[in-house]
């Protein structure tokens, strides 16, 4: 398992070992449907807590999961800052720059932030609990062309390599006196060209070398490829998928009935 190539963490948990990657994908999609079906902060808060509980259940290393949660937290902050200016339902609590800020607006902001945070956290748990090989295999089994599957797993594999190259290039430019931490945003953007330029060329070079190496080993000679890793749907998987379908359909029905909605007329 190419553990070091992605954010995947090998663990003995049920989520890692007993649940098929297709089922995990169904769980992820269902989480997205639920996140979009409701816009009440209480519902979305419970769902976010459930995802964090799932991460704990999957025995994920929280030091690795924390950056994902922090990134998700930023969306929460942005939601609270931006949405109250647009949702002005109910009596005003206070005014900011002449705009009335209402309790409903603030709660809707929390909900929108939680919605994105929920999706980010769920995607994080999915990637940390599904090995790239199994993830690709799962997608191929549900109809993704095998070449696209390889492209996807290769892209995941290249991320840390490209990140390492970025660090080396940044060091090389720092050794010539480049200070990326100083100056205004425009000058910083201009300075970053000295890193992005070599990074782009190195990445193209890396991808080209990889493509040649794969061609040389017969990649694409046959339509389908065999796999060293086999995956199989079990009764548990079918039970979870049934639960996912019920939850997704139920959430849409509840949404149509106005349950779990704090502001009508907004997704």
């Amino acid at each position, binding site marked *: 398992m190419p553990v070091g190539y992605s954010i995947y963490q090998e663990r003995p948990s049920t989520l890692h070992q007993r649940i098929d990657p297709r089922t995990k994908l169904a769980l992820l999609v269902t989480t997205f449907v639920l996140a979009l079906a409701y816009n009440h902060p209480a519902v979305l808060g419970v769902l976010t807590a459930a995802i964090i509980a799932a991460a704990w259940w999957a025995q994920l290393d929280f030091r690795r999961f924390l950056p994902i949660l922090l990134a998700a937290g930023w969306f929460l902050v942005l939601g609270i800052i931006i949405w109250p200016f647009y949702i002005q339902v109910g009596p005003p609590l206070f005014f900011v720059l002449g705009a009335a800020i209402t309790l409903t607006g603030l709660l809707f902001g929390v909900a929108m932030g939680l919605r994105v945070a929920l999706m980010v956290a769920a995607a994080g748990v999915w990637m940390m609990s599904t090995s790239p090989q199994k993830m690709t295999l799962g997608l191929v089994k549900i109809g993704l062309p095998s070449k696209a599957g390889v492209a996807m797993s290769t892209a995941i594999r290249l991320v840390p390599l490209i990140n390492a*190259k970025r660090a*080396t*290039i940044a*060091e*090389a*430019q*720092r*050794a*010539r*006196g*480049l*200070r990326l931490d100083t100056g205004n945003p425009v000058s910083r953007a201009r300075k970053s*060209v*000295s890193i992005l*330029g*070599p990074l782009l*060329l*190195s990445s193209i*070079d890396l991808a080209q070398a990889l493509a040649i190496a794969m061609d040389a080993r017969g990649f694409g000679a046959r339509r389908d490829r065999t796999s060293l890793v086999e995956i199989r749907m079990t009764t548990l998987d079918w039970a979870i998928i049934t639960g996912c379908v019920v939850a997704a359909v139920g959430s849409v029905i509840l949404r149509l009935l106005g349950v779990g909605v704090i502001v009508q007329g907004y997704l």
Partner: protein
Amino acid sequence: MTLERAPIIEVRDVGFSYPEAGVPALRGVNLTIREGEVVALVGQNGAGKTTLAKLFNGLLAPTQGEVVIRGQSTRKAGIDILSRIVGYCYQNPDHQIFSNTVRQEVAFGLKNHGVPKAEIEAKVHAALEMVGMEGEGDRYPFLLGRGERQKLAVASILALGPPVLVVDEPTTGLDLRGTRNIMELLSRLSEAGRTIVIITHDMNVVAEYAPRTVVMMNGAVILDGPTRAVLTDERALRSAFLKPPQITRVALRLHERAEGFAREILTVPEFIAEFRRLAGSGDANTASAARDGGS
């Protein structure tokens, strides 16, 4: 003579660990490099050569001990100051080249350091002249050959005028001609008074161009001395998974079997001179002169 020169790099009981790495990259390293020296840093992959060199210009800070560059601790002096004393040339020139012309690429570091425009042109010209690329200023860097790009990378560091030049595996990916070009450039820079630290796996390069060699293994310095003594210490080199140059090994075997054959031979010309001396077609002075001409 070397001992009379002032120290320019002092590494005092330095340890370094990368975050999340289980094993320290450097352990208790002590090293003094004096002005004008040419020092080869050798060792197998992961021995700690590059990590040690990155401590010289403040790209990394020691987790234990101290690195002092021209009397300034690297903990206190920032990379802006250190990069003008210690120029670091990366193994892969493509990790730094991004400009549209050779001239712009060489000027990049000078602009970062706020050098006035009027001075930049002169410094760029001087740096390109030093590497023998004075006529290439308007060329597109990515269309240059690997050897030329390596020289451009060196020029872009030289433009900053650092008295110390650290070159990380300068001959990797170069043919014999490219290797000779780059090493002769480094020799010229050394003759002009610069201190040169070469990180390399090429023991022939070490034998021919570096008078002093430092051998590293598992983050520690295990051997440090004149190249002639280091490269003929087969046992110590073997413990670091290194081998002397082939011609040195032949000479060592001949020394064991043929009475009077010199032990410390580093290059083919030295070997030929020694062979001729023993065969009677040369004299002792010729062989000795050949060895003195080497490291």
